[in-house]
């Protein structure tokens, strides 16, 4: 795969997931500031935005961007973890115009604020009462590590330790040796 697409972009964690189970070719966790440059790279490489989906976990709201390619199919997921109280993610609506609606829908359902969205009004909920209905009750939230198995870790920033303790003992041993 064209590994240079994301060269030089600060990546919290990159994994090569088991494709026929997760449907993803590549899976990258980025810091909010890294989203816009990464999406610009994907735009230049000819990708199109499939959707932006939210996930309410104990460690915050995980915003997953799914991209695919017309000629070279292979789904790439970019993910950003934003805290519950002030979920702020830069908007990619001026790169992919289709993202405006996806972002407005996410702010309806999860309350994530996308800075730079050209039309930040409620999309699906009545304008008068936006109640972020997809946010879960505190008790039923599950932590990120218990939900998603990222598969074989390619590169991990030590601060991003949600996946560290449980299932990548081999990665730790590799780090220990390196």
């Amino acid at each position, binding site marked *: 795969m064209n590994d240079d697409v994301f060269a030089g972009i600060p990546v919290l964690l990159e994994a090569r997931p088991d494709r*026929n*189970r*997760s*449907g*993803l070719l590549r899976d990258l966790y980025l810091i909010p500031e890294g989203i816009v440059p990464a999406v610009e790279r994907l735009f230049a490489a*000819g*990708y*199109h*935005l*499939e*959707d932006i*989906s*939210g*996930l*309410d976990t104990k460690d915050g709201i995980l915003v*997953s961007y*799914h991209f*695919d390619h*017309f000629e070279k*199919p292979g*789904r790439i*997921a970019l993910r950003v973890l934003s805290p519950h109280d002030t979920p702020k993610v830069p908007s990619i609506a001026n790169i*992919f*115009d*289709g993202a*405006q*609606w*996806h972002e407005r829908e996410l702010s309806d*359902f999860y309350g994530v604020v996308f800075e730079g969205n050209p*039309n930040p*009004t*409620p*999309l*699906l*909920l*009545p*304008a*008068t009462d936006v109640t972020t*209905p*997809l946010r*879960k009750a505190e008790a039923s939230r*599950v932590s990120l590590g*218990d*939900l*998603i*198995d990222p598969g074989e870790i390619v590169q991990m920033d030590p601060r991003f330790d949600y996946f560290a303790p449980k299932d990548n003992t081999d990665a730790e041993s590799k780090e220990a040796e390196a």
Partner: protein
Amino acid sequence: MKHHLSPEQISGDFYSRRFEQGPDEDTLILNMGPQHPSTHGVLRIILALDGEYIMRAEPVLGYLHRMHEAMAEHRTYLGYLPNMGRVDYLHAVAWNWAYVGAVERLGGIEVPRRAEYIRVITCELNRISSHLLWWGAYLLDLGAFTPIMYAFDDREIILDLLQSVSGSRLTYSFLRPGGVAFDLPDTFLDEVKAFIPHMRARLPMYKALVTDNTILRHRCEEVGDLPLEMCRRYGATGPVVRGSGMAYDVRRAEPYGVYPELEFEIPTENSQDAMGRYLVRMGELEQCLNILEQAVQAIPEGEHLIKGAPKPRWKAPVGETYFAVEGARGKIGVHLVSDGSSTPYRCKLRAPGFSNLSLFAELAEGTLLADAVSILGSLDLVIPEIDR
């Protein structure tokens, strides 16, 4: 006395006031929808009109938001199936397949070959019935009443066929993780074999009655010029992107089921306008018939549901998956996340109509109002899948 309307009666609402700061003398702010014959349900579009030309348009959604994604967190894996038939009731089998495929991928469940072929047959039949309804409704929007009568005539045959398999006419939920709920009735395959030549005999008549009609040509050609680059910016898929020259079909891009073993072409047009999208869908009708012909020959005997298929209280293994299927309107995606309990933790539904409609504001700028109706019809919108 210019008019007797009190200012309160013409004060618009939240979205129209935001759309236009103050109504000035030159532009007319008009609401097209939610109750409008050509918006196929409850889509509302605010238009700024200069005479008949659309200066600015803004679709407003949410009038049929039925909380499908919020409901997923309150239903068991099998209990959520009926929702799939109601997200997009014109191609319910594809939505069933997308959800059931995601659950199978998550649980690592095998599907017997006979069930795979039953899924292909019913999905392609449902695609034909969806395209027929689109065709009739599109011509109805353009003002011709006869085609929808012919379209429903053939569609009723398909509805009877699918009703004999699934029990319902429209909102099917007979697929199960691990196969299909019921086996085919024994006369089903012969009826499908009889249906194929009948439909093939009808298509030339459709072509003569409508496709070669000069009125339709003038109403569809050079209308809604959609370059491929714009499709990519908005994430449009399905016949909309194939009408702009890109042969992108999830059945070939991300093969699933037994589609790799079936030969069929992907019809594309390069004219990028409403006529191109129209011809792509008419071409797909023939391809569906080809697929049906092969599938009806090649369907093996065997069980229709795998042993030990998930029971209602089935708990999915922890994990996340994304499964895409080619629906009549484009790429249907289900992003399923499970925390090991018997109800999905999160189920995101990727609707093709959502992205296909988002390019309407840019596509309809500067066009005639009558052409905007033709553009909307050529995008083949089903509002419940857009509002979810």
